[in-house]
């Protein structure tokens, strides 16, 4: 999944990225039905979009917590958010060539 050879790669899940990885969001998946809170309509995908995870937005993994690399601190646009790997699974990212 890491791009040692500098070639274009197919998009991967944000959850699979390591510390320091950068890329651009290509899609936010709707398949996680978990809600963010108790209010109706508050799905993970919606909140991710609202806070800036939309196609084209630059994203970078700043830090991950040991053990298990969960949660991760992710910069989206100009904002830093803490996400668990599970939330990050909904975000599809095209990794930048190094």
């Amino acid at each position, binding site marked *: 999944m890491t791009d040692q050879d500098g070639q274009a790669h197919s998009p991967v899940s944000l959850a699979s990225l390591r510390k320091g990885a950068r890329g651009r969001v290509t899609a936010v998946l709707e398949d996680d039905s978990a809600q963010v809170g108790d209010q109706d309509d508050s799905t993970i995908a919606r909140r991710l979009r609202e806070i800036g995870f939309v196609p084209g937005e630059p994203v970078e993994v700043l830090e991950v917590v040991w053990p298990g690399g969960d949660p991760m601190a992710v910069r989206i646009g100009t904002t*830093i958010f803490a996400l668990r790997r599970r939330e990050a699974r909904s975000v599809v990212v095209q990794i930048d060539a190094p």
Partner: protein
Amino acid sequence: MTRFPPPTRTCRVALVGVPNCGKTALFNRLTGSNQKVANYPGVTVERKEGAFVGPGHDCLYQVIDLPGTYSLVPTTLDEAVSRDAVAGRLRGEPPPELIICVVDATNLRLSLRLVLELKELGRPMIVALNMSDLARQRGYKLDRERLSAELGLPVVETIAVRAGGEAELVVAMEAQSAVTAAAAPASLIVPGSADVERTQRESRRILDAAGYVVPLRTRALQRLDGVVMNPLFGPLLLAVLLFLVFQAVFSWAAAPMEWIDAGIGALGSLLQQALPAGALQSLLVDGVLSGVGAVLIFLPQILILFAFILLLEDSGYLPRAAFLLDRLMGSIGLSGRSFIPLLSSFACAIPGIMATRTIPNMRNRITTIMLAPLMTCSARLPVYALLIGAFIPHQAVGWFNLQGLVLFALYVAGVLGAVLVALVLKLRAGRSNYYPLLMELPEYHWPNLRNLWIGLWERTRIFLARVGTIILALMVLLWFLASYPAPPPGATDPAIHYSFAGMIGNALQSVFAPLGFNWQISVALVPGLAAREVAVGALGTVYALSAGADDVGAALAPMIAGSWSLATALSLLAWYVFAPQCLSTLVTVRRETNSWRYPLIMAGYLFALAYVAAFITYRVAVALGGG
């Protein structure tokens, strides 16, 4: 000074914005200390309202500070209230005539989508470009005229942390309020995912058109994050910080606590001289001053702890600490979001419980609320200090002091109890539900002293109100119970033995005897149920001391050291780690959860824990020869 006629009209203004945009600082700047904090009817969300008269002297602005929200599709109760309030759909709350959307000039991408969503409500609205000084300083670029033209809304610059930083906004408010009229509630349509992406695209288009340029994050900030959130150094730094905070709470508070103590003592002797001996003097000195003084003395410790919490929160550190602890807290069924409420609970469970409002999921929130009273709050300190001082020898154990170690062990016992309870709750809940973290880690800021001051003043007011109402009333009641009825003529036992308090104590003693508590402790526990710290004053009264208010504790220590066994003292300490001896906490839980169910469960499980812990402690101590 020129006098102006009273304002002839009012304008209801709602302040809205994403979390961490400096909205509350701007609210403080606009309304100063002229604020009222209450709850919205029927829900438990805090409603902050303030007012000021505009520079034209004819309009009174009633400003409400709504909870921060990323969107008009809420995830938390807080966000739901914000949405309903701006749309004018909140029960008992007229629609606002003017909306001020506060945006962070250093993080416009996040804020601007909310502006577009709010704009669709079709209300008169002003965009306040907050932190505009910081943005310029850090090299952000923006054509404000163009932004205003693209949005079709007035855009003003504000600097909430500087005096006069609200001037431009106030001018715009005067212009808008002159033309706005009362509005009807707006209808809400839940936007679909396509709508969210559309508003995001639109906000990016507008920002590009307005030439919004964000400088690269400085190396210094990146390095700071590299250390603070480092998987290895981050937790170490957090541990050191927490240690220093608790150290400061105890060492810095010592001097002001002595002043309060001396002041109350002086007041007591003054009253004793000024009033003739009798019931009134006894009521004021033994009842009111000794009881209230025993509580008031903890104000410095509470304020120091809160000052640290507010500073760490304002600087952007606390959310990062929560990030580091998410995994750990997740293993006992909580999330990183529970960290800040639980940390606050070390000062006092009440603000801790109120801080759980930011936890989006009700079950997580309830669990956090249930654990809050297990964090050793400052009200337990007087009891711990009295008992440790009287029973634990002041001797060195390696590098440490035995008294200090016992105090530390009591804190740890509370935390371990919380872990245990959390695990039980997690087992009961099963693994069915998942709740995401999705928490913003805001940019670091230098904390603002004015906001710190306003925050501390709010805490002081709440604390003093509690001392002046619940605690004062209880002390008067206890004094009455301990003084009447008077002993029959020719009585041989101390007077209190014949009073109502003595009767209650004797009745309760059968319940508490297995824990090694005597009737005096049993009596003191009754008012101590309402507020823990009262027990010290109550023990003083019960032991019928005639000493002045200031040295109740000092004179009490040798007295109980002579009459209790070590096992009894340890048992009482164990009781205090767990027992739900704080009516205000239970009332707060009732208010926050809107039902009596949770406060009753809380009281029940805490009493059971306390009884078992005290029983085991007593039996073990007796078996080891401490009886």
